[in-house]
């Protein structure tokens, strides 16, 4: 891993797409984003395995922090200092993780995470349950100590200065809870007191926030009477009580009905714009947060397998188009017809649904394909373009599948 460090002044992209570990199932599916992917990592251009060859050496431990930058004559493989790891961090980055690793015994919850979130960005951390999203969030807040690696939030180390970080970071935990015996307002007041906000200023701010999350009427009811969606909204107000500059939301849309999710997202969108917040949110429901995020990162089994702006991650889909096709009649009929359409490069059966064929083409061939199938007396029953929502991206980047099951 020292190769990519030879020119530390070279600006690195905030996030790189990590190559997923090669798996057997991978070759079965065409991976259109691979070649022109704009979010491609600038390092290891020649040796794709370089990133994995010697990671065990490239560890940074807390006691390395004070180590002086090593002279040139040091062996090539050595632990990098914090300064080296952070050499390429952009000036306006708010959340930085480098080689961040958390292990519980033998289990690696987060594996060498590199993450950079700049001021004003809304970053979506996506992945199945148990992929390491919450662990990452806890490390960012200093609630869990990293095993290795570096974290900086607003330039501070959350492990060493947790209070300074917590003073400026609003956090909505996974499954947020409130003191049932207290009213919504009293719960927020407690948070304000813990943040040392003077009583009068806190009350004004709480009134404002409660109105903003539309809990003005329920503010003086006991929190135990709140519905799930109300609790979630109160949680957002709670995270904003301290006037944070960074907001971390862990599964904000979990267990809320679709209408509630829409409302919550609209609320978040408004709040983010109004308060010029930097937001990190995690979710395992991809479509829900899609519209909110400037950039997204895919988490799988503790690793960030891909990250970048949504349209860039989807950029690969511009060049290569995948169409799901089904007809009334034998699916084999599709193969012959589709291959005769100009631009179509391959037709393969869907691994799960026998009657569906996946047509890969160099451009969108939906219209000529439909015409050709109609001419061949194969009425179209299903035609869908893949690669246009996060679920497809998910399939592309997380080969082992959601929850570790294959797709």
């Amino acid at each position, binding site marked *: 891993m020292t190769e990519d460090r030879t020119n530390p002044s070279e600006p690195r992209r905030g996030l790189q797409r990590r190559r997923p570990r090669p798996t057997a199932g991978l070759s079965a599916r065409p991976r259109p984003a691979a070649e022109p992917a704009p979010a491609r990592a600038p390092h290891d251009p020649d040796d794709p395995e370089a990133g994995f060859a010697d990671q065990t050496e490239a560890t940074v431990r807390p006691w390395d922090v004070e180590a002086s930058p090593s002279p040139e004559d040091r062996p090539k493989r050595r632990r990098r200092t914090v300064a080296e790891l*952070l050499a390429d*961090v952009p*000036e*306006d*980055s*708010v*959340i*930085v993780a480098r080689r961040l690793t958390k292990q519980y015994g033998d289990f690696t919850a987060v594996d060498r995470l590199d993450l950079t979130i*700049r*001021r004003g960005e809304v970053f979506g951390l996506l992945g199945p349950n148990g992929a390491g999203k*919450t662990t990452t969030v*806890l490390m960012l*807040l200093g*609630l*869990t100590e990293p095993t290795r690696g570096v974290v*900086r939030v*607003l*330039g*501070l180390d959350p492990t060493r*200065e947790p*209070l*300074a970080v*917590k*003073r*400026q*970071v609003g*956090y909505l*935990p*996974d*499954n*947020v*809870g*409130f*003191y*049932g*015996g207290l009213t919504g307002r009293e719960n927020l007041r*407690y*948070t304000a*007191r*813990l*943040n*040392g906000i003077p009583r009068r200023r806190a009350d004004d*701010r709480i009134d*404002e926030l409660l109105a903003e999350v539309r809990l003005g009427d329920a503010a003086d009811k006991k929190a135990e009477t709140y519905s799930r969606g109300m609790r979630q909204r109160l*949680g957002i107000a*709670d995270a904003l009580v*301290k*006037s*944070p*500059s960074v907001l971390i939301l862990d599964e904000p849309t979990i267990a809320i009905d679709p209408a509630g999710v829409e409302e919550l997202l609209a609320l978040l969108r408004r709040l983010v714009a*109004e*308060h*010029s*917040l930097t937001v990190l949110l995690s979710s395992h429901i991809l479509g829900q947060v899609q519209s909110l995020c400037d950039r997204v990162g895919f988490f799988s089994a503790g690793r960030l397998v891909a990250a970048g702006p949504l349209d860039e991650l989807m950029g690969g889909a511009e060049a290569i188009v995948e169409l799901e096709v089904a007809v009334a009649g034998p699916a084999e009929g599709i193969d012959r017809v589709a291959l005769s359409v100009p631009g179509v490069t391959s037709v393969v059966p869907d691994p799960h649904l026998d009657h569906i064929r996946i047509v890969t083409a160099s451009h969108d061939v939906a219209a000529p394909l439909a015409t050709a199938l109609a001419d061949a007396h194969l009425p179209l029953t299903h035609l869908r373009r893949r690669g246009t929502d996060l679920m497809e991206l998910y399939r592309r980047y997380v080969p082992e599948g959601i929850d570790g099951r294959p797709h």
Partner: protein
Amino acid sequence: MAAPTETTGSPASPARKSRADSRRSERAPSGGWRTIAAKELADHISSWRFIVLLFVIALLSVLPMYFSASDVQAQAVAASGNPLAFLALFTHGSASFGSVPMITLVTLLVPLVGISFGFDGINSERSQGTLSRLLAQPVHRDDVVNGKFAAGIFVIAIMILSLVVLVTAIGILRLGIIPQAEDLARVLVWAIATVLYASFWLAFALLLSTIIRSAATAALVGFGSWLAITMVGGFVLPAIASFLFPIDTTASIGAQFGAATAQNLLLRVSPAQLYTDILQAIMDPRTNAIMISNLGQATSSQQQIPTLLSLDQSVLLVWPQFVALVALTVLLFAIAYVMFLRQEVRA
């Protein structure tokens, strides 16, 4: 809305500046534990748990006192000026009330109070989902345990003191005995010892609430231990002690005293025994020895003309018990504290 704090994310030089900022703000009195303690205290006092316990304890201390008051009254003329007259309100068990004195009932119930205010301290925060929210606020992690312990001690102290005031007031009204300063001081020391004993159980319950995820299980384990120590401990520990250190009557008197001392020390691993010792010395000024460990002490205590000890002498007599009780409480609290600090925020 206040604008977000202007901070810089660059890790190099501005980080140093913000680190200095944060150090300054960490020096500023955060008082996190006080905020937490205040909230916990408010929760306790408005809880049903507090009201019911206060009612039960008040009833169980006023009832025996009410009956013993008539006994004391009958002898009041003879006992006039005797400091025992006032203390007898606490220590005398009337025959019409099963000869159970008030302090015995309180001794029995105090652990219950301690456990009640601690068994769900940490685990309820966890199961409610408020722990991660609480710890995401700028408070130290130990503020949570400290605040909860402080609030527990405070609420117990309120309970015990109101009890003392109640009994004293009823005693004065019914008996017309104005307690002397020495009496009041003894009752006060008893109250402090009782709060200390309850704190031991509070620390124990907080430890349980840290280790055991379910509040109901923690409560069961807590109350089970209370029964075991106060009830069974009274029979089992002496049996173990006499089994381990049998007193051989054919041996030399020195050896017999050695075995007796060993038995006595073993009994005193039980906080209940320590508290009982303190009660005995503080509430009965006639007590002039707790543990007799050699022949000299035995003969001197017999030869002494029965006199009343002054309070400082009584306190001196059970000072080791005080220290041991504090030490046990601190030990349990320290274990709970360390366990909580080492625990992951989520399971």
